């Protein structure tokens, strides 16, 4: 106890102590996280708490996705497809959804860097412009695909302004070049046709992933033919011939492991067999050129069923115009030419292969073209180089050539989002806007234009890439005033000149505003007549296909990573943690081997091997992939980046092997732990994921749905107003992962990193389970989205000691995070394993400004609590409020959880089970419907509709 006695203290000492106390207190004060900032000057049109939507366009490679950007208080939070876009109809790709995180990437360049030092725009211009003005040699501009008429016009303006001229090449490492080469040879142009899977009854896929996540339009078209009302169909039939297991193979009715080097031979053999069955060859195609391709011999060689191949020929003939044959970018041009021949023979050209409104093709540089340009750069033939978009320093496939090119260029300028591998080699790195901050237009079809508009003001001292080039053109042009300083103005001027209909009664300003509002503009354009196939090109392709020697060693198939694509998204944690749809591997790549090859080489998952081709090598762990063709090795590109705090060092860079047809494989004896999101691959004879062939479906319908009387431990619950429920059609679902990313974005689901995925601590509220059945050489694949089933008699609720998880009056199984003490009993008692425990305060580890991507409507969960799917309760509440404000009851379609809104296949349906007219009520009663682990008597609210397959004849697959 302190006595109140006087103490003697000098004034100086007292003040000294006070000063020290104040300094100590200041040091101890809670560090300011800058989380709350008053929005004290409300911009016009912004209502705090209400979301706005901006229509814009996201470009990836040669595809422009129409998107709607959801904005709250000025922050873009969530992306979904633009419902006005005629092709995508409100859906978009998982990578497009996830790209909102790249806007808030803490690693983004925030100001220009000149000669390795942070700088500003004035100094950057002072460094670059005199060199460009003095250039007597051409300047090299290497970019990604332009895809935009205004960008093309800008490049032309820049070309005119540069005194030494401009050499421009567009390169997309993930797009391949064989398709364009074949199109040029067979049709004389590079127009890319739309694959109309919505019109196709028989689809043949040769090493092409038609159902990969980014193929939104194809997935929607395919799914529209996969969920018939009854066993009588109609339903399409998909044949896949592929070396690596893809989502297309996983969803096919017949999948045959097939070496990619023999895909062209297969297509020509199919053409020959069709011809022999009376289908005429297009004029100019020589029957003798096809004579060496024999279907039976190929079947023997590849260990495939000859009867299946002959059945396919009959199927193709029967389908005629409704058939579609497509080859993948990894295949050589002759395989594409053979597909053009088949489509032309069947009459599919102009029907399922639709080039009627294809815009003028964009000539992309191939790997050889790029190497040629880099060699010229090394030889000092360019005055300077500007690298825009694609990351050439990382993906140029030839590190030594890149270095010598960099040494041969007097000035190198990088325009990009990050200080990436390319920027590190450049004298000036100019930060550009993220596309959500930028203007632009795209021409995906001759009758359609898409506009890109900023959804947020620039976060940093950046400029739009186009604006930087426009600045160069203005500074160098003799007639500088002819060019506006602002790219929006440039875009608007071009639209006024070339897009705005002459003589329109609507003023241009209204036309522009309406186009921005919709994000798309449909134009009148005359359809082009069907393309005429050049028979000579096909004859030459057949001869080339015959001359291909079997490659030594393993055939190599490199494809863009499902999440990271060509590496540009490698710094996006959402996409790194999105499991590969087939291998379920997160955070890295692995070389997939067939089970027989793995057994022969005594390799198992995680064993590291050295791959060598053409004097280059890479060391990579292997994954034993059921269904992989023997002798084929496949892996994803886009990993092994050398810059970026998230991307750096994750996975293995395989770009040095790009272009190699085959590799040699040597085990190194090392092992690496692979962070798989799923470790068990068999259903062990249970029927959690069901699949029926059409005939089995007919049989099950005849027998009727078995009644299973279920005992229940609790009195039935009452849902007086409504009962929320979901239906998932496994036949429509292709497993693309759009729902997983949309859920992550909507619900602030944290990224945990590879170490914690290895411990099984990933946090996804929604996952897609992938099961194999049958022999590992030719497995059947079953895909099943899995999320909280919101059981009526939920086993998690009855074991929670603190009642943190309980049921609401509308059937939602809800979590009170504040009440949860983290016993994890609920997770232990959940038969679906969909509850996720927050082991660390992941949200607190978010580096600013990534926290701006958090949805303010969803609680950011602290450490030590259990979390799980809420059926997007925030969207339910928002819809209720909107309905109340409008004075009407809640209607069907008012509430759409993020997963359902994102699903390109329309496989997820959400609604009120108490409303007998709702879609979900009808689907719950479907004769394909079942509930997973229904026998436990827990009454889940999610109905799954059994997967359907449409196998042909004797090869019929058995349902699980």
């Amino acid at each position, binding site marked *: 106890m302190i006595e109140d006695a006087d*103490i003697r203290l000098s004034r100086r000492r007292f003040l000294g102590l006070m000063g020290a106390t*104040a300094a100590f207190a200041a040091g101890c004060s809670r560090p300011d996280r800058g989380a709350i900032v008053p929005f004290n000057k409300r*911009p016009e049109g912004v209502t705090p708490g*209400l979301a706005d*939507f*901006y229509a814009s366009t996201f470009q990836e490679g040669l595809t422009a996705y129409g998107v709607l950007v959801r904005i709250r208080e000025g922050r873009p939070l969530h992306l979904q497809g633009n419902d006005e876009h005629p092709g995508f109809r409100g859906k978009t790709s998982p990578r497009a959804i996830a790209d909102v995180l790249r806007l808030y990437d803490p690693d983004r360049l925030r100001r220009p860097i000149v000669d390795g030092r942070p700088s500003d725009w004035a100094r950057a211009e002072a460094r670059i412009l005199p060199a460009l003005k003095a250039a007597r040699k051409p300047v090299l501009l290497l970019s990604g695909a332009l895809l935009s008429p205004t960008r093309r016009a800008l490049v032309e303006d820049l070309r005119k302004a540069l005194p030494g001229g401009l050499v421009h090449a567009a390169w997309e490492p993930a797009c391949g070049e064989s398709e364009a080469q074949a199109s040029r040879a067979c049709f004389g142009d590079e127009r890319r046709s739309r694959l109309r899977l919505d019109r196709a009854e028989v689809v043949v896929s040769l090493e092409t992933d038609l159902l990969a996540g980014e193929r939104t339009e194809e997935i929607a078209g395919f799914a529209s033919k996969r969920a018939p009302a009854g066993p009588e169909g109609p339903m399409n039939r998909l044949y896949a011939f592929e070396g690596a297991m893809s989502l297309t193979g996983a969803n096919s009715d017949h999948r045959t492991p097939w070496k990619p080097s023999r895909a062209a031979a297969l297509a020509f053999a199919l053409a020959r067999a069709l011809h022999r069955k009376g289908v005429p060859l297009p004029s100019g195609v020589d029957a003798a050129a096809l004579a060496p391709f024999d279907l039976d011999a190929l079947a023997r060689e590849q260990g495939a069923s000859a009867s299946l191949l002959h059945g396919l020929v009959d199927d193709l003939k029967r389908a005629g115009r409704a058939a579609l044959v497509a080859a993948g970018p990894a295949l050589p041009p002759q395989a594409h030419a053979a597909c053009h021949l088949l489509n032309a023979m069947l009459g599919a050209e102009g029907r399922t292969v639709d080039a009627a409104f294809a815009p003028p093709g964009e000539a992309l540089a191939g790997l050889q073209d790029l190497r040629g340009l880099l060699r010229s750069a090394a030889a000092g033939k360019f005055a300077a180089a500007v690298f825009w978009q694609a990351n050439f320093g990382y993906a140029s496939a030839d590190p030594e050539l890149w270095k010598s090119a960099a040494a041969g260029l007097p000035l190198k300028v990088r325009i990009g989002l990050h200080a990436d591998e390319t920027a590190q080699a450049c004298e000036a790195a100019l930060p550009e806007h993220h596309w959500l901050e930028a203007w632009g237009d795209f021409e995906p079809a001759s009758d359609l234009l898409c506009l890109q508009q900023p959804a*947020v003001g620039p976060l*940093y001292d950046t400029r739009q890439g186009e604006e930087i080039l426009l600045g160069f053109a203005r500074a160098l042009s003799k007639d500088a005033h002819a060019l506006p300083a602002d790219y929006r103005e440039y875009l608007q001027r071009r639209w006024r000149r070339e897009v705005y209909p002459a003589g329109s009664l609507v003023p241009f300003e209204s036309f522009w505003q309406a186009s921005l509002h919709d994000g798309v503009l449909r134009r009148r354009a005359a359809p082009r007549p069907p393309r005429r196939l050049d028979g000579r090109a096909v004859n030459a392709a057949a001869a080339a296909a015959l001359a291909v020697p079997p490659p030594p060693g393993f055939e190599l198939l490199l494809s863009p990573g499902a999440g990271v694509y060509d590496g540009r998204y490698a710094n996006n944690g959402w996409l790194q943690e999105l499991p590969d749809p087939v291998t379920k591997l997160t955070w890295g790549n692995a070389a997939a081997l067939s089970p027989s090859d793995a057994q022969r080489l005594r390799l198992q998952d995680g064993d590291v091997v050295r791959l060598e081709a053409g004097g280059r090598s890479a060391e990579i762990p292997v994954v034993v992939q059921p269904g992989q063709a023997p002798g084929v090795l496949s892996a994803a590109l886009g990993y092994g980046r050398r810059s970026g705090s998230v991307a750096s060092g994750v996975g293995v860079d395989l770009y040095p092997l790009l272009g190699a047809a085959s590799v040699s494989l040597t085990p190194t004896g090392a092992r690496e732990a692979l962070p798989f999101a799923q470790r068990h691959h068999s259903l062990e004879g249970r029927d959690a994921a069901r699949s029926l062939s059409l005939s089995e479906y007919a049989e099950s319908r005849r027998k009727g749905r078995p009644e299973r009387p279920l005992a229940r431990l609790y009195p039935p619950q009452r849902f007086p107003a409504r009962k929320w429920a979901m239906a998932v059609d496994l036949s429509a679902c292709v497993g693309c992962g759009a729902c997983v990313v949309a859920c992550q974005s909507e619900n602030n689901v944290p990224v945990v990193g590879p170490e914690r995925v290895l411990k099984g601590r990933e946090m996804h509220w929604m996952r897609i389970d992938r099961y194999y059945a049958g022999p590992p050489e030719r497995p059947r694949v079953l895909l099943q989205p899995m999320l909280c089933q919101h059981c009526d008699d939920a086993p998690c609720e009855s074991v929670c000691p603190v009642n943190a998880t309980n049921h609401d009056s509308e059937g939602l199984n809800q979590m009170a995070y504040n009440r949860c003490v983290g016993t994890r009993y609920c997770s232990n008692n959940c038969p679906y394993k969909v509850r996720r425990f927050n082991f660390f305060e992941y949200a607190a580890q978010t580096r600013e400004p990534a926290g701006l991507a958090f949805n303010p409507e969803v609680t950011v969960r602290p450490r030590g609590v259990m979390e799980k799917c809420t059926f997007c309760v925030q969207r339910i509440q928002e819809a209720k409020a909107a309905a109340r404000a409008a004075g009407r009851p809640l209607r069907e379609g008012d509430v759409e959880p993020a997963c359902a809104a994102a699903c390109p296949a329309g496989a997820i349906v959400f609604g009120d089970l108490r409303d007998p007219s709702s879609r979900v009520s009808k689907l719950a009663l479907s004769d394909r419907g079942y509930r997973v682990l229904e026998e436990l008597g827990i009454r889940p609210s999610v109905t799954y509709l059994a997967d359907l397959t449409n196998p042909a004849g004797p090869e019929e697959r058995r349902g699980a």
Partner: protein
Amino acid sequence: MPATVSRRGFLKALVLAWAGAAAGLDSLKESLRSVLIPAGTTLHVRPPAHSVGRKAR
């Protein structure tokens, strides 16, 4: 001349000075934020000029 301070008074002053300094510095930092934080940081999230949005649906 040395000042005479009671022990209770001293402790009171100590606690008050601590609390005051903590609160004062925090609010001082808050009010200086707009000056101290360089332009272009994320606090300046703002709607874009010239874009056209749609109302919440």
